[in-house]
């Protein structure tokens, strides 16, 4: 299943609920467009909920890195929420787990934004 997203606002933070696969092609493009759209609207506090993302490939990892650096370069913050085991393991072996700010609890994650 390709990536599907829906965005909601909680205390000034845009929470993007993602489900499906973030892979080369459509999945990566969907994620890129969502983040770009939020930044265009001035939304710079972004929480990507990956709880329903069951698969991600190297292109998807690259897209997460791109989203993270793009948001940060514009003075914003991007955090990840609720990683599945597969995504967690991938971020571990690529040493990106410590680069991203990863949270398990949505309320705490929202409060953690500056």
């Amino acid at each position, binding site marked *: 299943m390709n990536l599907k997203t829906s965005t909601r606002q909680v205390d000034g933070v845009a929470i993007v609920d993602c489900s499906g696969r973030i892979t080369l092609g459509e999945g990566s493009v969907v994620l890129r467009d969502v983040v770009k759209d939020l930044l265009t609207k001035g939304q710079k506090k972004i929480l990507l909920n990956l709880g329903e993302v069951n698969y991600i490939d*190297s*292109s998807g990892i*690259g897209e997460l890195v791109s989203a993270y*650096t793009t948001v940060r370069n514009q003075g914003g913050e991007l955090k990840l929420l609720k990683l599945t085991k597969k995504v967690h393991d991938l971020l571990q*072996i*690529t040493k*990106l787990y410590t*680069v991203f700010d990863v949270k398990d609890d949505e309320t705490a994650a929202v409060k953690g934004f500056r």
Partner: protein
Amino acid sequence: MAGDRFSYKLDSTLETVDNAEQTASRIASESGFDEDEVMQIAMAVREAAVNAVLHGNAYDPEKKIELEFERTISDLVITIRDQGKGLDLAKIPDPLAPENLLKTSGRGIFLIRSFMDEVQINPSQAGTEIKLFKHVHGTSEDGKEAPQ
């Protein structure tokens, strides 16, 4: 099932990447690998297919991808060949190096090596061949049945 060999010739498209992954997943599952191993094998094949389609054949409709599965006594062996210029192994950066951590690409070969037991990359002017090996349960490295 040992000795079975399946070979496919595929177009240089994104659809090929998905097909290669799905076929690898099915064959790995039929070969008795567990769920995590099936995912690893399928992902390694996906990454190799991405390299072949994007970096090898560069989506050229005239160039094909060859995908081969072979079940030996000791391994599931998957071979992916493209018709590109040949991968320059010296130009593949270490994605774990601090200066490369935030790069948006360059993790494919690393993931392939992480997920498979052995990887052989053979670049030539006629293209790149990558062979992926995953040891079958219950056999030792020399192909004999491992003691219980």
